[in-house]
């Protein structure tokens, strides 16, 4: 349905992306490299009705996740009521005991959620992962759309595609909503971070200052930005990259956590929210939705088993070859094992490992998700692709009418992560 001539602009659009430095950082053997993120011109198209369905499901899910985090750091009712196994919370790395009892501004822990979905061949959508800590990636479709529109703005109107260039506005709204009175800043660990492009581009687009730890200081009970004349500006909110922000110690910005716990600064995303995006906790999300919202989940998880439970362990051992096993401590496409790809010896070792550390793994049915065409050397070829949808929370959750579609460039691979050599597409949500 889309004008195929457009695909021939693939090279020039990629040239434009290169000129704007649209890259991600990656460490190979300890050395930092900046790598271009290959863009494919064939958009993923999601029809209006279908997106509305996803939107309802995503909002529901993020609401429940936010309720869950509030509950876990306060009354812990979901544990007392036996809905979520306590062990998955307290012995997971996402639970931060320092956050216990803390209420962030407006009780929001999930300011920006990146929810990964796939669509199976029969059209059904499944949630693969909830990313609440460092859900990056929105900047890529943002700038890709911007550049594509330069080449053929009329196509977007002709096909009635929702404009996705409002991401910065939605993000600004999320920041202002929790702002405690002061500047908004985006905190970056620096240019040698994988998501540095995203940090700097979002700063440019939202008008927030891009800062590093050295630019900020806690004095008295507030956080300040020191400008070049030595003048101080109060900070009230920031886009925190928690992976690089060592909350276990005072390293980073000394005392930021102390004043955060007093409600004098908002941190986006809120520290401690990793308790809800743990791969083990994922298993419990459908139950959470019922528990907190009293609703049936609109979007399903991929069928998942926790070897922690004997019944599930039994299933995993009997069906090992058709399952994908994930190490809950790993991210970014690492720690993923397909049962049928292991040799006999490897399989035995792996099963022994699951038996000795059942808490460490989850197992999922392999979803045969749909192929989406990519344009490769002048022709369209099918590749596996997923979708990261972005849900931003202010007074209500808002689903960005687009998303990051990542694809695997290797025809035999299901792993679409950029760090594993994948590319990305724009995601067109139709207006009618």
């Amino acid at each position, binding site marked *: 349905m889309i004008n195929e001539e457009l695909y021939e602009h693939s090279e020039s659009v990629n040239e434009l992306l290169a000129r704007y430095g649209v890259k991600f950082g990656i460490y190979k053997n300890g050395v930092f490299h900046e790598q271009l993120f290959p863009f494919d011109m064939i958009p993923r198209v999601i029809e209006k009705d279908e997106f509305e369905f996803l939107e309802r499901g995503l909002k529901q899910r993020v609401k429940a996740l936010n309720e869950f985090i509030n509950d876990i750091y306060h009354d812990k009712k979901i544990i007392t009521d036996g809905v979520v196994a306590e062990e998955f919370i*307290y012995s997971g790395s996402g639970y931060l005991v320092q956050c216990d009892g803390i209420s962030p501004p407006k009780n929001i822990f999930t300011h920006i959620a990146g929810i990964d979905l796939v669509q199976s061949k029969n059209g059904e959508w499944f949630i693969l992962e909830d990313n609440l800590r460092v859900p990056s990636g929105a900047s890529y479709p943002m700038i890709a759309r911007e550049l594509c529109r330069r080449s053929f703005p009329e196509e977007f109107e002709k096909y009635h595609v929702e404009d996705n260039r409002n991401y910065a506005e939605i993000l600004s709204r999320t920041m202002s909503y929790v702002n405690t009175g002061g500047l908004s800043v985006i905190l970056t660990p620096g240019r040698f971070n994988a998501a540095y492009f995203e940090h700097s581009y979002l700063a440019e687009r939202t008008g927030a200052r891009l800062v590093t730890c050295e630019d900020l200081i*806690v004095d008295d009970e507030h956080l300040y930005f020191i400008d070049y004349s030595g003048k101080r500006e109060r900070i009230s909110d920031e886009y925190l990259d928690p992976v690089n922000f060592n909350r276990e*110690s005072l390293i980073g910005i000394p*005392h930021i956590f102390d004043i955060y716990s007093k409600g004098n600064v908002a941190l986006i995303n809120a520290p401690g929210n990793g308790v809800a995006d743990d791969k083990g906790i994922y298993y419990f999300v459908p139950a959470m939705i019922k528990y907190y919202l009293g609703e049936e989940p609109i979007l399903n998880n991929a069928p998942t088993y926790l070897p922690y439970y004997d019944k599930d362990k039994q299933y995993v051992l009997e069906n090992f070859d058709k399952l994908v096993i994930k190490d809950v401590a790993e991210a970014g496409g690492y720690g993923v094992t397909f049962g049928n790809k292991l040799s006999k010896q490897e399989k035995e070792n792996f099963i022994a490992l699951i038996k000795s550390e059942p808490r460490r793994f989850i197992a999922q049915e392999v979803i045969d998700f749909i192929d989406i065409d990519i344009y490769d050397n002048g022709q369209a070829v099918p590749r596996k692709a997923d979708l990261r949808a972005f849900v931003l929370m202010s007074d209500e959750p808002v689903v960005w009418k687009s998303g990051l579609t990542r694809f695997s460039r290797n025809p035999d691979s299901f792993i679409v992560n950029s760090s594993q050599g994948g590319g990305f597409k724009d995601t067109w949500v139709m207006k009618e």
Partner: protein
Amino acid sequence: MQRLRYSYHMQLNFEEPVREHHFKLRCFPSSDERQKIFNEYINIYPTHFSSAEKDSFGNMCIYGAANQTHDHFSVDVKGEAEININGQLKVEAYKAGIFKYETNLTKAGNNIREFHRTLEPSALYTSNFERAKYFMNVLYDEFSYVQGVTGIFTTGEEAFTIRSGVCQDYAHILLALCRLERIPCRYVAGMIPGEGATHAWTEIYDEGKWRLLDPTHNRECDDTYIKISSGRDAQDCSINQGVFYGGGRQRQEVKVIAEKV
């Protein structure tokens, strides 16, 4: 009721001057059902600003900064405590859940696990507290009090391997044993008469309340134990955390006095 007078003095001496010194202190006994604090006096020097708060375990903390150049940093805390041995430290079960799980310092490795397997089965004990007391007894026989062989970062497993250490190590090992059976238990830092330094003991969750055991002395805590803080392990109770520029080598002096009035 036992009334005690206490004083805690800590001084850091820096070989080279330091600046932009940010600190967080956790060395202030506070009142609860078991102890009442009177006539408290706190002096921290130098400070540019300081502010008080409670951490997520309910421990009183003071954080702040000393911007100007200094070559020493000192904290003095004095006061009186009245201990009521019958005061009950009540806690709701859901709040104790976090204390069931091992931390880096209280993780049982092969040696503690091996030892645990040689012990009497838990079915012989009717309560968490009795079970923990049994652990304390067998640990006391197995372990020797030796100074200088372990440090503040030594794990319970490491100390157990050499069968010697100080109060922090006794507490960590007891916690590791309890946590193997998912008995909620916590680490306590505090002061007792005659030590000269801070002491460490444990609290065991038993039917809605915390009960105190001092594994170093193999006894239940009496009315001379002044609690400063509690947490999952010694790290949660660290008395002084700080970052600063400069300093070179540093020397820490600590002097604790607790005496009956």
